[in-house]
């Protein structure tokens, strides 16, 4: 039985804590008697027979007829799936999406369905490379569907293949992929790594247009999202659920399949990253030293290659199918059971070790904007009820924050950093002044549609993602970050953790309480 997550009060006998530092890591000693560390639960065991579990879910769905009964020969069937932003790191093969889609295709073949399209629900993310599609779907599906053009990626900028399905009572227009809208049945294969994923968000963002996404991906919604991991208190999710209702009323029948995975993120020799420091064996300590020293000496590019080459030994812990809302509620129960750690009270300083990866840089570079998005967007939002850090408190992140950008994946990020952030770091101001220009830029549009670039507007969305954290914190310090890049983003650079605590004392006094979120793996702090 895996041990649950817990909160450790740091005393003098507590060993230094592991902090991610991009493609490196370090051990930092936290002040005794006023620091605490939140440890996630140990990884849950995976299902012994995931194939059987998937088949069972398809035969016994929630609040819908079995998939077999929904399939008939002369129908239009569309299967959508999450893109490479899930899971992080990428899971070793076979991916859950491959398992699910193969099970769906077996049933479709039995029913004699000829018209099947498989669409990667990218939203405004970059198009996946063929090797990524092969990794996610497996060679069998790729070889059967890609050559004849029935496996493809959603294009949010193709006016001929978008259609408006309706409007919510808040004036939000639902504009989605035409093939999806015209289908008799849409099956969505989901990987729910965190509580934010799944539900109506999968389809309503994955196959939507920029116009549709801009209704909820904006500073106002994201500043009122408390938090991304709690959909009942998230303005973003409220908007998406309203659009989901329009889809349900006016759109095709949707059969949602959601699968949860455990938190077993690192294979050998990196297993020590998921262990509690005082339980490191001699071998773990040696591995840490060898790895840390090697990474210190390796060029950035080589270190990045090592980390992005990691295939996580994630295992499927549950799978549910049927009506989207019913399925999502069951999935959330499972996700919370694994991720929730109860925490008493808020803290003055929240420390976060920012890793080498975020949902927007698989096989790519973690540029400064993504560091902000990961720290203030994702990690800060790992809470329910109230944030871990008190309002006006200090957030300390550790990351090298170098000014490196991937020119193929993140072209608009480069200009955003140089042009927009030089002008303003305020999400509301940049939304007003700059967003439309980037969103409608023809060159970015061309790169998004034909290359492997994120949409022109994507750096704005990444910035808005951290809007709540940015607004909430009194000061944000980045330890070990490139000072120019850090200052450009409106944050404070620091060389060491002690320097960071010293800088924080201006805001939180000389003896602040400190909370460290231990990463990996994933946890959601339920703050009382």
């Amino acid at each position, binding site marked *: 039985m895996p041990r649950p997550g817990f909160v450790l009060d740091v005393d003098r006998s507590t060993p230094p804590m592991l902090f991610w530092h991009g493609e490196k890591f370090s051990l930092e000693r936290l002040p005794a008697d006023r620091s605490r560390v939140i440890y996630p639960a140990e990884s849950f065991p995976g299902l*012994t027979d995931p*194939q059987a579990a998937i088949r069972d879910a398809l035969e016994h769905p929630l609040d819908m007829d079995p998939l077999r009964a929904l399939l008939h020969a002369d129908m239009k069937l569309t299967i959508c799936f999450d893109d490479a932003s899930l899971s992080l790191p990428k899971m070793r093969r076979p991916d859950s999406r491959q398992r699910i889609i193969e099970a769906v*295709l077996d049933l479709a073949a039995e*029913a*004699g369905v*000829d018209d099947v399209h498989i669409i990667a629900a990218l939203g405004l993310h970059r198009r996946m490379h063929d090797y990524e599609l092969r990794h996610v779907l497996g060679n*069998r*599906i790729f070889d*059967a*569907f890609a050559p004849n053009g029935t496996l493809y990626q959603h294009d949010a900028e193709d006016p001929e293949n978008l259609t408006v399905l309706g409007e919510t009572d808040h004036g939000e227009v639902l504009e989605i992929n035409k093939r999806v809208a015209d289908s008799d049945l849409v099956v969505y294969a989901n990987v729910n790594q965190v509580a934010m994923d799944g539900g109506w968000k999968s389809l309503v963002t994955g196959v939507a247009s920029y116009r549709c996404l801009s209704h909820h991906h904006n500073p106002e919604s994201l500043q009122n999202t408390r938090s991304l991991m709690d959909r009942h208190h998230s303005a973003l999710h409220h908007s998406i659920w309203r659009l989901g209702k329009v889809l349900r009323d006016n759109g095709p029948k949707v059969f949602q399949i959601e699968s949860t995975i455990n938190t077993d993120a690192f294979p050998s020799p990196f297993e020590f990253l998921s262990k509690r420091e005082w339980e490191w064996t001699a071998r773990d300590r040696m591995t840490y030293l060898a790895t840390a020293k090697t990474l210190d000496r390796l060029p950035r590019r080589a270190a990045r290659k090592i980390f992005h080459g990691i295939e996580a030994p994630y295992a499927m812990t549950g799978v549910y199918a049927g009506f989207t809302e019913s399925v999502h509620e069951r999935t959330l129960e499972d996700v919370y059971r694994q991720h929730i750690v109860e925490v008493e009270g808020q803290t003055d300083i929240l420390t976060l070790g920012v890793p080498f990866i975020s949902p927007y840089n698989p096989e790519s570079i973690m540029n400064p904007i993504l560091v902000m998005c990961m720290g203030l967007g994702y990690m800060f939002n790992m809470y329910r009820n109230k944030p871990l850090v008190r309002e006006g408190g200090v957030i300390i992140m550790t990351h090298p924050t170098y000014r490196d950008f991937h020119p193929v994946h993140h072209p608009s990020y480069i200009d955003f950093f140089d042009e927009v952030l030089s002008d303003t770091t305020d999400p509301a101001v940049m939304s007003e002044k700059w967003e439309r220009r980037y969103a409608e830029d023809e060159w970015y549009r061309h790169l998004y549609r034909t290359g492997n670039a994120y949409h022109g507007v994507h750096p704005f969305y990444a910035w808005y993602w951290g809007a709540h954290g940015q607004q909430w914190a009194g000061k944000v310090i980045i330890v070990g970050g490139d000072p120019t890049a850090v200052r450009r983003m409106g944050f404070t650079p620091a060389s060491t953790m002690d320097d960071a605590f010293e800088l924080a004392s201006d805001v939180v006094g000389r003896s602040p309480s400190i909370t460290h979120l231990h990463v990996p793996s994933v946890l959601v702090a339920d703050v009382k």
Partner: protein
Amino acid sequence: MASKRHLTRRAQQLAARTEHAIRVVAKPLAKYGFPWRSPTVPRGITVPEKPDTLGGNFETDWARRPLASVFRSAFTAGPMKLMTTVLARPEVLGLDRLTDLARLDDPPPLIFAPDHHSHLDTSVMIQAIPPAWRRDLVVAAAADYFFDKRWKATFSALALNAIPIDREATGRQSADLFRDLIDDGRSLLIYPEGGRSPDGWAQPFKGGAAYLSAKTGVAVVPVHIEGTGAIFGKGMKKPRPGRTRVIFGEPLLSLPDENTRRYNARIEAAVGRLTEESVSDYWTAARRAAAGAANRLEGPSTSSWRRKWLLTERRHREISGRNNRPDRSWPNLGPRQK
């Protein structure tokens, strides 16, 4: 003339003396009869025949002892792998269908049931089967072919961990032996066709694999081997190097209330689907299988030339057909501009 007669008489004298000398030497040995010599059989008595230690009776326990296993590991990882790579260049697909089982702490034994075109199949399969099962793999080999001579039997047992099996029917002795081996955690490689394909198309599956699986509860993994028939098929005098492909299918278990015959038919259909998958794609194969389309494994029941004709067409589409194609093809850039 006189001299010729003289020479003849001398030769006759020499022969007589030699015969005498042999008799003198052999005389003392004649005294040593039974038990030094084999007994004579009294008249009217029929001696019961000694049990045959070859064929299905060949004892193979010794080949699973540690020393033999070490030799086998070295042999399969060395010369056999080299030979397989040089001759067959196997491409292995569908292993993801076994990964869940392979990742268990104690992977359960499996029965691998491929179609059979060549003697190369066994070495290709031994290289293709994941290490979790390769270590404890036993191979069911035709008793009348691989165990008919002592040297062949010894080599088969030692190098391949082969167990003799009757092609026509799985006898009680073989079945009990296989069951004991499976109970010991060993996996089995068995060719359900009972022998190599005579013409490139598969033969009807015999029920051995299905029977053993139903009796032991061990899953059968359908496997399709493609290309070995073109490299060293039945009747070929020497191998012709080429490419091969091994496709593993989803493990199958006997269903409740399913008799061995139906289960066997399901295994055959699964191998047929993999065959289809190799010449078309996964989705086409799934649809054909679901629509109950004719199994392409055994080929059409038509005259022999038409079977061969269709086989040529199929081979053109499968991996062996690539053997004669160039590895690189240049795009057609149209007529040359002057």
